[in-house]
């Protein structure tokens, strides 16, 4: 019994996920709740806010493109709040309070999440310093080969090309 339920449910939740991508059911029901904000707020103003939020039920789908019913309802909430005169940042904060930081699409700059931003930078800097020091060491210790011939700059290119072409011949 449990298993059958699970399978059923699983397909439901999978469905929900795919919904995010593929858009709403163009049935009568969804038309009622389609983006139809109050007269004072245009669809475009809603989109402007929704552009910076992410669907909490999907992964990596922007709220303005997600057509889950939940997302439609979120856009309605945005329209209501815009009508009430709330600024964009307040609306975003409201959604963070409701659903958590996952609606932001990037880790907020606090606590453990700092690591998400700092580690790549640290690795880039660390790697850069390492490569540079390595290279410096190598350059300092070059004694094994004679320096490149001081050919005239004009000829350098041709020489190089010929040398390379020869290498493959």
């Amino acid at each position, binding site marked *: 019994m*449990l298993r059958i339920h699970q399978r059923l449910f699983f397909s439901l939740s999978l469905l929900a996920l795919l919904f995010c991508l593929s858009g709403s059911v163009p049935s009568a029901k969804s038309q009622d709740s389609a983006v139809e904000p109050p007269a004072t707020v245009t669809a475009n103003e809603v989109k402007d806010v929704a552009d910076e939020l992410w669907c*909490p039920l999907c992964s990596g789908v922007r709220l303005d493109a997600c057509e889950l019913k939940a997302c439609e*309802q979120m856009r309605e909430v945005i329209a209501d709040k815009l009508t009430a005169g709330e600024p964009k940042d307040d609306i975003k904060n409201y959604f963070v*309070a*409701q659903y958590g930081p996952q609606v932001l699409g990037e880790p907020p700059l606090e606590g453990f999440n700092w690591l998400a931003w700092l580690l790549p930078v640290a690795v880039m800097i660390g790697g850069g310093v390492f*490569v540079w020091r390595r290279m410096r*060491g190598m350059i300092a210790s070059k004694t094994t080969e004679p320096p490149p011939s001081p050919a005239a700059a004009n000829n350098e290119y041709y020489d190089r090309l010929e040398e390379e072409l020869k290498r493959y011949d």
Partner: protein
Amino acid sequence: MTEATTSDRPPAAGADREQPASKRAVRIWQAVFVLILVGFVVLLALRLVQTNQSEQRAAGEAPSFTFTTFQGETIALEDLRGQGVVVNFWASWCNPCRDEAALLEAAWRREKENGIVFIGLDYLDQEPAAKAYLAEFDITYPSGPDLQSAAARRYGIKGVPETFFIDPQGNIQELVIGPIVSQNRLDELLDQIRP
């Protein structure tokens, strides 16, 4: 990652006098690199265990949670010890939830005198739509938003609806994934958690 791996490169010719020190450095880098990878694999394994865990959720002590209903009343699960608790995760955008809403409400009205409490936790929902849903099905048992999905995460739900049956001692007796549509089935489940 970059520095760890490139450091394995043996020192350039001509740097002979640095050999012992750099050899030790290479060893240390190797160890660091291996440890990072071990950590990564362990986390992957943990995650894998978590994602496959859904079967085991229907047992053990129910994780605690506190929530505020749409009417403004704050309820904590601990305060409900001694009664059987039915925790139903739902959402207004969830169509299967509609199949069980009336049944749950009827059961609540019938059973509330028998020491059974129904609780609705609203999962990733929007307040206007949620209130409309509650009004539509005339739901009177306490129901409120699960802010930041705190409870949903502790219960490890995979979606809605999911319903947990918690006995008076605070242990989860049964878990139903998907809507409960039969009265008999619901009665069987309730019998397991009567005080």
